[in-house]
């Protein structure tokens, strides 16, 4: 045994240092087992192709315009939403296998395992978004706004992902195993499809359209359609006019709620 390591004074728990170590851990996982990530990307691309070529012909954009141009901003937000499965599963698997208990028994900053997870998932979100942009360009989608508008749109998409990551972390902390899968799917499907991602809310029954227009996902989709200069961003509900503002406020609200909730849950794990 090395006396030097043992006698060295304990470093202070550092939020930044511990979080980065745990981000590296997640990256090491992906390097060793890239299968699930490749699968997730393939699924995203498949959905794009399905909507662009299979359903797209039957779908009309109110006010005219290309359905593929309408579709892609919805797809960008949708893949950010689907990404939280990854987050929830990873958090829940750590808890189930005792890794979370081990971290909690160690002098690791309390927020670090959660923040480390969030950072790693954001890195993957950037990769996902890049792949989706390429897929979009391949099916004929284009960003018509200036570089500033385009960057702002990409920023809003990633902001949504960051907020949803914390929802995913919280779900992973309060569920386990099969329960985690169910919880994520129960969240993803209504949130994803009851939105303006694939169809315009104006084509839905009035009450459903209202739900869809209030959906946080629709705010980001509406705002990014406008920034990309893609068709279909207007909508007739008054709330649609506030989508750019809501695309910032909704994610901030989710972060403000789910970061403290997750942290509290993490501290109190196991009663």
């Amino acid at each position: 045994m090395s006396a030097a390591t043992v006698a060295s004074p304990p470093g202070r728990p550092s939020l930044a240092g511990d979080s980065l170590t745990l981000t590296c851990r997640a990256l090491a996982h992906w390097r060793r087992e890239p299968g699930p990530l490749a699968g997730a990307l393939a699924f995203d691309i498949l959905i794009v192709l399905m909507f662009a070529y299979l359903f797209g012909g039957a779908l009309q954009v109110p006010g005219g315009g290309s359905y593929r141009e309408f579709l892609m901003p919805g797809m960008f937000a949708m893949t950010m939403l689907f990404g939280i499965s990854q987050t929830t599963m990873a958090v829940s698997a750590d808890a189930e296998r005792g890794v979370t208990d081990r971290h909690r028994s160690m002098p690791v900053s309390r927020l670090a395992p959660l923040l480390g997870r969030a950072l790693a998932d954001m890195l993957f979100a950037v990769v996902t978004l890049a792949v989706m942009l390429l897929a979009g360009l391949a099916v004929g989608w284009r960003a018509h706004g200036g570089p500033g508008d385009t960057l702002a749109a990409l920023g809003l998409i990633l902001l949504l992902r960051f907020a949803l990551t914390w929802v995913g972390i919280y779900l992973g902390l309060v569920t386990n195993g099969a329960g985690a899968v169910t919880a994520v799917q129960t969240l993803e499907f209504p949130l994803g499809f009851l939105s303006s991602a694939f169809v315009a809310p104006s084509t839905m029954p009035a009450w459903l359209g209202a739900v869809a227009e209030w959906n946080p996902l629709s705010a980001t989709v509406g705002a990014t359609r406008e920034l990309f200069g893609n068709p279909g961003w207007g909508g007739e509900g008054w709330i649609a006019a506030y989508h750019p503002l809501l695309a910032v406020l909704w994610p901030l609200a989710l972060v403000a709620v789910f970061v403290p909730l997750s942290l509290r849950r993490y501290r109190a794990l196991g009663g």
Partner: protein
Amino acid sequence: MEHAIITQGLCKRYGDTAALDGFDLRVPPGTVCGLLGPNGAGKTTAVRILATLLRFDAGRAVVAGLDVARQAERVRYRIGLVGQRPAVDEALSGRENLVIFGRLFHLGRAPARRRATELLERFGLADAGGAPVRTYSGGMRRRLDLAVGMIRTPSVLFLDEPTTALDPRGRNEVWESVRDLVRAGTTVLLTTQYLDEADQLADRICVLDAGRVVAEGTPDALKARLGGDRIDLVVRDAGDLAAAADRLRRVATADPVVDPDRRAVSAQVDDRAGALTEVLRALDADGVTVADVALRRPTLDEVFLRLTGRPAERVDATVRVPA
């Protein structure tokens, strides 16, 4: 002498049930204390509280001279925890696991790598260090788990059922590693459901029932209180069962228990080898064919039932032979 672990009147409730109900424990430094008890006795709750994972409702807990409730952060630098299932990353190599956990214990990059190499060697994993944990045997995983728990050479190591689901070889490997740690001065609190595990490793044993200590002492002292070993006999022909029970009764210290379905008879004896020889010789002379024979320690079930004053035999599965 300052104790490595002290608990006084520790209580933890979940709703209406008390997981711990006035749990008192003192473990001298550099010794192994075995916490023994059936499922639900409170063993894991006790370990989780002492490892700062769980808050408690009343009482006091001190680990390595630090108050668990008020100085949890400092306690975490002095303890290691090895839970019921290996808490390591299956996808990563043994070395990667050790380096990452070393970094989380706030060792620098180079010291964390050095420590990983040392521990891989010490736990007999040097050759497998680069391979993913997924490819390890159960015993190797457990050893890696122990190695992670030893990164900072903890003053106190908590082992919660460390050999559950391991084959005998894996258990032996883990026991060897634990003995090494204790020789180096670590205090170990071990929970187990296996009497022989506590017997192998522990200097003292505490038997827990319903959140309290119901018996405490050295393994030998406890065993003396618990009575002797048991002989289990299985005969080839069901018709010989009564004769076998009769022969066994003559060497036993209590009435034998007969299980007609298994053609088995079992009884407690004092002089293990003598009784076994005598009964086999007698059955041979009677022309009774013995299909299987075993000399075994009382199971934890039997020990526990005796300690808590409840009947030592289960009446649902067995039939008592009339004397």
